[in-house]
């Protein structure tokens, strides 16, 4: 029974998922379908959480735009997530960076890992 489920799940997974961690600054390329045309939209921010496993894995990206915090949750294996680029690696001590929601300005930064 588990074999069948593994097979169904692995069919839905992408063959290769770029390596990125919590605290990294990433640029997510998402495919947007508007009527008949398709274009790519970029979303840049800090990865504050990775949840789930297998097909169900998602990650949350947070950025501050015009003073408003914006968070988007992407399913890692979604065909609409075309590319994930790591721009900067972060040095963090937690798996979930929810504390960033309460920080403003300079305090909301993540140290770079070298």
């Amino acid at each position, binding site marked *: *029974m588990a074999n*069948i*489920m593994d097979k*169904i799940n692995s069919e*839905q997974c992408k063959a290769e998922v770029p390596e990125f961690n919590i605290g990294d600054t990433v640029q997510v390329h998402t495919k947007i379908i508007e009527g008949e045309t398709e274009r790519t939209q970029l979303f840049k921010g800090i990865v504050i959480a990775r949840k789930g496993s297998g097909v*169900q894995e998602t990650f949350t990206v947070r950025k501050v735009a015009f003073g408003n915090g914006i968070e988007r949750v992407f*399913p890692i294996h979604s*065909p*609409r997530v075309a590319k994930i680029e790591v721009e900067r690696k972060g040095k963090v001590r937690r798996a979930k960076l929810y504390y960033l929601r309460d920080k403003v300005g300079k305090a909301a930064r993540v140290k770079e890992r070298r």
Partner: protein
Amino acid sequence: MEKVLIVKKMGMSQIFDEKGKLTPVTVLQALPNTVIESKTVEKHGYSAIQLGAGERKAKNVSKAVCGHVRHAGLESNPPAKIKEFRLNADSELAPGAKIDVSTFTEGEFIDATGTMKGRGFQGVVKRYNFAGGRYSHGGGWKRKPGSIGQCEYPGRVNKGKKMPGQMGNVTRTIQNLQIVKVSLDDNLLCVKGAVPGPQGGTIYISAAKKK
């Protein structure tokens, strides 16, 4: 072919379509289904098809069932599950014929019947989503149902009043589940949404009645 099948619930997963839309699915695996008997209007007064699935040792099955199955011409062990499905018209399938998932196509709607997970004797909060009382500020009736009626008139409790009792372990049918995927290699059906029962439970599916 008749759109009926005995299947096993494998578990739930999710499927992305070509546009990237996510659909929650239940994976059902068809057991090898064999026609045991075709009932006709002429002979039995109604149309139905009797399917058998799985396998059981002959010593564990009553002789009546063994005999019934032998009449159908089945040489192997008697099936673990036997289910009769009512049909609109007489079936042309003869006893011994095999049915698999190829009778279903993607996009079709089905009804799924199974036995819910049993939850035992439960109170009204879990069973009927009653709100219950406050735990603090002088509450005093935490998970109780509260008043169950009025006074001298009507002088009795209304019929059908929701009260504590057995929850689950009853047969339930979920109607109009859409088939998202059919896999002939593994004899699998993926249907959108949930079906009753635990993983490994037996589910009886038929074409949707109301579509």
